[in-house]
C-alpha cells in the first residue's frame, strides 16, 4: 500500500443471504440438471433408461426441497404471497418466483407419469402399499408415451427458464462486482451438471441396481461438465484481460490480499482436476468402476462448494470498507442447522419415495415388476448406506 490509509471506524454488516441461499441454488441446480440427464431416457434412448430412473428420483426430490430452502432465506417467510400479489416483471427474483412453481409441479407430474407405470402392478396388493398405489395411480390406464414425451419436453423448456433466472438474478448485481458477470450463468449450469452426474452415480451405488451404462454415461457427463466449467472460468478470466471487467479485477484483488481466497481457489482447481482425472481413469479402467460413487461424492462436493464460494464467500468481500468480513457459520437455523436440515429433509424424502414407489421398475426397469415379492426397499437402501 503506497498511500498509507488506515481505517479507524467503519460499520461492518453481517451477510444478508444466509447458507439457505446456497442450499436453494444447489438443490435447484441439481433439479434442473438431473432432469437434463433423465431426458434422453425419457425420450426413448435405450442406454439412458437406467440413468433416467436415478435422475428422476434426484430431480423430483431436489425440486421439492429447493423451494423450502428458498422460503427459509426470506426474513419474512410468511409474506411469500406478496410475490404473487405484487408481480414485478422487471425484477429477476419476481420472474423466478413465477417460474418456480410450474417447474416444480411439472417435475412432480413427470415423476408421477413414469412411476405410476410400475405402481400399477401394486394395485392388487391388499397391504398399505397397495392402497397407496390405488390412490396414486388414479386408475389402471397405461401411461401414454406421447404424454411422457410431451411433458418431458415441456419440463425441459421450463428448466431452461430456471437455469437462466437463477444465473441472471445473481449476475446482474452490480453492487457485488464478483457476481456481475454473464459467465455466472453457464458456470451455474455446468457445475449443476457436475453435481447431478455425481448424484446419479451415488444413487446408483446406494439405491441400486447397479448399471454399467449409467456409470459410463455419468463418468462422461461429469468429466465433460468439469472441462466445460474450466472453459467457462477461462473465458471469464480472458474477458477480464481484454475488457475492463470489474468482476475479474475484484477477484484478483481478493485473491491477492487474502490467504483464504488463495486456498479456496487452489482447492477448487485441485478438486476439479482430480475429479476430471478420476472420471477419465474409471472410463479407461472398466474393472475399477465400482469406485464411481466416490467420484459422485466428489462431484457433489464440488457443485456445492462452487455455490458456497460464489454466494457466501463473495459476501465477505466488503463493498466500500477495507478488509474482509470474518464470517463464521453459526449453529442456528440461519447457519449449519439450515444446511443439515435441508440435507436431512432431502434424504428423508428419498427414503419415503423409495419405500412407497417402485421407481426401479419405471421406464422398462425390472425391479418393480414382481408384485408378490415384498419389496422392502427401505431396509435394502438403509443397509447399503452403511
Amino acid at each position, binding site marked *: 500500500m503506497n498511500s498509507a490509509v488506515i481505517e*479507524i471506524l467503519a460499520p461492518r454488516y453481517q451477510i444478508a443471504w444466509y447458507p439457505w441461499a446456497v442450499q436453494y441454488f444447489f438443490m435447484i441446480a441439481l433439479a434442473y440438471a438431473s432432469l437434463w440427464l433423465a431426458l434422453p431416457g425419457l425420450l426413448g434412448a435405450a442406454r439412458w433408461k437406467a440413468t433416467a430412473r436415478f435422475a428422476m428420483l434426484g430431480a423430483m426430490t431436489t425440486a421439492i426441497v429447493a423451494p423450502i430452502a428458498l422460503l427459509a432465506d426470506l426474513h419474512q417467510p410468511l409474506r411469500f404471497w406478496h410475490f404473487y400479489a405484487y408481480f414485478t416483471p422487471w*425484477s429477476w427474483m419476481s420472474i423466478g*418466483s413465477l417460474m418456480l412453481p410450474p417447474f416444480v409441479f411439472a417435475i412432480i407430474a413427470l415423476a408421477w407419469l413414469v412411476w405410476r407405470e410400475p405402481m400399477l402392478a401394486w394395485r392388487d396388493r391388499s397391504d398399505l402399499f397397495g392402497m397407496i398405489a390405488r390412490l396414486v395411480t388414479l386408475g389402471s390406464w397405461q401411461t401414454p408415451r406421447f404424454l411422457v414425451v410431451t411433458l418431458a419436453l415441456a419440463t425441459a423448456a421450463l428448466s431452461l427458464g430456471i437455469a437462466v433466472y437463477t444465473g441472471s438474478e445473481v449476475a446482474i448485481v452490480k453492487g457485488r462486482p464478483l457476481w456481475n458477470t454473464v459467465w455466472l450463468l453457464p458456470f451455474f449450469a455446468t457445475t449443476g451438471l457436475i453435481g447431478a452426474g455425481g448424484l446419479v452415480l451415488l444413487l446408483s451405488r446406494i439405491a441400486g441396481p447397479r448399471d454399467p451404462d449409467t456409470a459410463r454415461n455419468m463418468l462422461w457427463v461429469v468429466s465433460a461438465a468439469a472441462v466445460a466449467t474450466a472453459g467457462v472460468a477461462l473465458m471469464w478470466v480472458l474477458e477480464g484481460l481484454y475488457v475492463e471487467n470489474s468482476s475479474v479485477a475484484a477477484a484478483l484483488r481478493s485473491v491477492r490480499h487474502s490467504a483464504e481466497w488463495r486456498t479456496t481457489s487452489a482447492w477448487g482447481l485441485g478438486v476439479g482436476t482430480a475429479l476430471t482425472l478420476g472420471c477419465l481413469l474409471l472410463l479407461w479402467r472398466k474393472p475399477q468402476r465400482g469406485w464411481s460413487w466416490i467420484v459422485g461424492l466428489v462431484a457433489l462436493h464440488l457443485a456445492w462448494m462452487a455455490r458456497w464460494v460464489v454466494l457466501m464467500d463473495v459476501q465477505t468481500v466488503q463493498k466500500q470498507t477495507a478488509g474482509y468480513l470474518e464470517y463464521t457459520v453459526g449453529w442456528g437455523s440461519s447457519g449449519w442447522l439450515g444446511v443439515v436440515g435441508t440435507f436431512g429433509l432431502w434424504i428423508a424424502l428419498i427414503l419415503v419415495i423409495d419405500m412407497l414407489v417402485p421407481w426401479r421398475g419405471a421406464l422398462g426397469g425390472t425391479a418393480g415388476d414382481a408384485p408378490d415379492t415384498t419389496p422392502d426397499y427401505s431396509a435394502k437402501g438403509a443397509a447399503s448406506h452403511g
Partner: protein
Amino acid sequence: MDLARRMFMGQLARFAAGASLVPLATVAEAAINEQPPRRGGDPAKRYAMLIDLRRCIGCQACTVSCHLENDAPLGKFRTIVSQYEVDDPETGDMSTFFLPRLCNHCDNPPCVPVCPVQATYQQEDGIVVVDAERCVGCAYCVQACPYDARFINDKTQTADKCTFCTHRLEAGLLPACVESCVGGARIIGDLNDPESTISKMVAEHHGELKVLQPEKGTSPHVFYLGMDERFIDRPEAFASIWDIHGKDNKELHYEFSGH
C-alpha cells in the same frame, strides 16, 4: 435538466461505452433490470444532499441523532461517519479524514428494480424508500446497493435505509442528521429550485463536487465537497479496527458484529 444531472453525463457516457463491449449483459439489463416509474412524493422537487467535508469534525452527532430518530437496531446505521488515518501527500504527516456515509438516493438506483414485490421504490422527488409492510425481507436490495446503505433491520426483519427523513421533510423539518450537524457540513435541499442553498452551492463548486463510485452508473445524489480521491471507490486501506488482537491472539470482535 439540472446541473447535477449534467455533471454525470460524462461519467454515464463512459460507462455506456464500457458496457457496450459486453452486449449480452446490456441486453439482459435493458430488458428486465430497468427502473420502474417513480411514485409518490412531490414531482416538482428533486431532493439531494451536499456534504462539505471541510466542515465535518467527525463528532458522530448525525450518527447518534439518526439512530434515535429512526430507531435503528444496535450496530446498524442509516448514516455513519467513517474515519480514516491518511498521510498527507505533501507533508507526509498523518491526518484524519471523515467520510459521512448514507443512502445516495441515486438517480439510477440499482436497489429499486431488483425488489421482487415493489416494496423498495423511488418517489418522484428522488427519495428512495422502503414499504416495510410489503417487504418480504429477501435482502436482494441489500446485495444490489453498492454503498452498503441498506441492511436488514433485526427488529422488523425488513430492509431499512436512510429516507432523508421524509417524515420530517413533510412536516417542514430538516432531517435529524442535518439538524444536529455541529459543523453545518450537511446541506439538504431541492435541486430543482435554483434559489435553494444546495443549488447555489452546486453551481458554485460545480467542478469540485465528487460522488461515490461514479463508474457504477448509479448517479448518486449525495455530493461531497473537499473529497479525497482515494475514498471515491473502496479505499485501499488497512482495516485497523478489525486487526486488534486480544491476549489469546484472537481477533477482538466488534461488539455488535453478531447482529
